[in-house]
């Protein structure tokens, strides 16, 4: 039963990945044209909202998968928890509500490509000024970043609704 579930999860994950790898062209079509009134950063709207990195298109998010989220939790423990706690400031900010603060696409881009975001993105720059520590590149691949996102989707779903 568990194996079947895992297989299903793997297929599901593949599907998730396929939905955002490959095309990604449309975000560039309106480059340098800002339609978002809050965007005074000088960045194109896509980067302003979603950061710099391999995720260049809105993710198509299927319903929450707890098996994948559990795998994401393990990755969080080994690669992130040395600096991030869920509910308190540590080396970096508390993370439980991260998806209330940034988009899923931004979350993944920051995990996958911290250096560029810290250098270019106003939100990341602001965090650097606050925590005085550049977020490290933990060499996390696309698949594992997606599992991490699923973990935070799970945590997000457990947060009290406004």
């Amino acid at each position: 039963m568990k194996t079947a579930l895992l297989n299903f999860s793997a297929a599901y994950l593949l599907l998730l990945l396929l939905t955002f790898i490959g095309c990604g062209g449309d975000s560039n079509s309106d480059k340098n044209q800002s339609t978002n009134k809050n965007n005074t950063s000088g960045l194109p709207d896509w980067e302003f909202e979603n950061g710099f990195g391999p995720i260049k298109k809105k993710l198509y998010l299927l319903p929450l998968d707890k098996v994948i989220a559990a795998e994401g939790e393990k990755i969080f423990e080994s690669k992130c928890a040395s600096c991030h706690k869920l509910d308190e400031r540590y080396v970096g900010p508390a993370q439980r509500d991260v998806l209330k603060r940034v988009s899923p696409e931004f979350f993944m881009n920051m995990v996958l490509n911290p250096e560029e975001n810290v250098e270019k993105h106003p939100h990341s720059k602001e965090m650097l000024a606050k925590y005085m520590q550049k977020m490290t590149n933990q060499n996390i691949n696309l698949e594992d970043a997606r599992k991490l996102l699923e973990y935070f989707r799970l945590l997000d779903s457990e947060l009290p609704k406004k």
Partner: protein
Amino acid sequence: MYRKYFNMIAIALAIIATVVIVHNGCQQSKDLVSGDVAEKVYVKPGTYDDFYLFTSGGFSGHVGVYGLPSGRLFRVIPVFSQDPEKAWGYSEESKPMFITSHGFVPWDDAHHPELSQTDGVPDGRWLFINGNNTPRVARIDLSTFKTAEIIEIPNSAGNHGSPFITQNSEYIVASTRFSVPIPNKDVSLSSFKENFKGTLSFIKIAKDGAMNIEFQIIVPGFNYDLAHGGKGPSHGWAFFTSYNTEQANTLLEVNASQNDKDFVAAVNWKKAEEYIKQGKYKTFSSTYFNNRFDEKKHMGISEKRSDVKVLIPSECPGLIYYLPTPKSPHGVDVDPTGEYIAAGGKLAAVIPVHSFSKMMKAIENKEFDGEVDGIPVLKYESVMAGEVKNPGLGPLHTEFDGNGYAYTSSFISSEIVKWKIGTWEVVDRIPTYYSIGHLCIPGGDSRKPWGKYVVALNKITKDRYLPTGPELTQSAQLFDISGDKMKLLLDFPTIGEPHYAQAIPADILMKNSKKIFPIEENGNPYSTKAEKDARVERNGNIIHVYMSTIRTHFAPDNIEGIKVGDEVYFHVTNLEQDWDIPHGFAVKGANNSELLIMPGATETLKWLPMQEGVYPFYCTDFCSALHQEMQGYVRVSQKGSNVELAWGTGK
């Protein structure tokens, strides 16, 4: 009688030295480097050198890594000697790499780096180097620039003639410089001729690089000096120089310089393999160690081995032949075609070049001039292809440019002599400053040299650098050999005493360079793969601290309950997964060294607290803006105290 002779030699040497000094004095002003030289060695900030140069660290026991043409030092790789900077030989994980049949040997004298080859061309997988004093050969992994394996060579003393590789890295060959009783025993030193023997060792290289003493050949008790594998038509053969065929055991500088000719030994190792297969070997019981560093476990594993297969030449016809070679030959170098074998006779007036095809014909026609211990001696005239006349004084080593020219270092006259293969005429010569030993052309001992530069590895620097007290820097010099005339480009200091060096185009290595060790693959039994697993465990008086590091804290960073008399092991895992972010670990009063832990690796420091009190520890490698905050405390209480074991971070 000897004394008179000795005086004559001394006078002769003094005259030569005077001539050399005067000669160099003139040359130096004439040989001022020309205007465009700076451009040729200038590597703009932020750009790369064309070649990696690996120099032996000589008596430092390390390997130096330089860039060419800039001469910039990039790295010192510790091999046979302890290095507290990298905890090499100090961390619990690296100590096994130093184990020999003589126990823990923390130093050696490293002479000859040799790159692995495929089809006779350096392939960038590994670099081998010999330890001369306590005979060993090391293998350095060129994806991590770290020593991956060290094997001890039994039945050897003074492992000078190694490690030279065969065309497809089938074997590393090694010859013993000092003949000794084999097996070693207590005999009178004057019984040299009766009891002393040499060995030629063949170390098999497995697909993954693992080394094994496949077989040894017992040879007459001469001094075996250097070697090279055959290539192309001579693939399957290996060549070894010998001197002291007089078999002197005292005052060799006189007594080993009597014979007009010594020998190059030509060994047919494919024949040796047949003899081994037929079981025509003896088994000598010898104890030696093989030490491998497991990159996944981040730890060295030392394995005791015994027994080695030994071939006796008199029982194995066709295995080995002697080529008479004037006079006390040092280097033996095979040209890129594999046909010519040049030997540098330290005391010879010519460079003799043997022909492989003539040698094969002479063997077929049995053109022998006697034999030594069952080893046929070929006639000099039958194997000699030509003699390079007027090659400078004290010719030592030859490298090749792949364009039909050879370059020989001449120690006494301090120069590089360029000569043409086939006509044997000297076409150019250039002074070196001073007393050149080895020389190196990138790929210069392979089938396809990259003949752009030659590097002179000099023994003496005298007036070339700012003085630094009685001991001056070691040094190398870079020459452009792309034109007809050699051109001096650059002097640069090197570590240790540089013996041989090898160079390889940067792009062959760069693409394989490892940036991190994936933390998921860390198989060290004492690793801490997540901060939540950081802990302290007591087992009697043994304390294991499972510690993690990340920018910018240790977990745990407060430890209490350690007592005087405890044996504390700090197992530090670096959780970083980012290139060039090692963390250091140092604790006050440690009797060994710091740790310098690469991203994803685990290293262990043993610490014996002697007195009660509080001991800080900290990160030694500047890692982030909050590096100065990366610290912790250990509280050490008196023996029998009831302070509970406790640890934590941030509480």
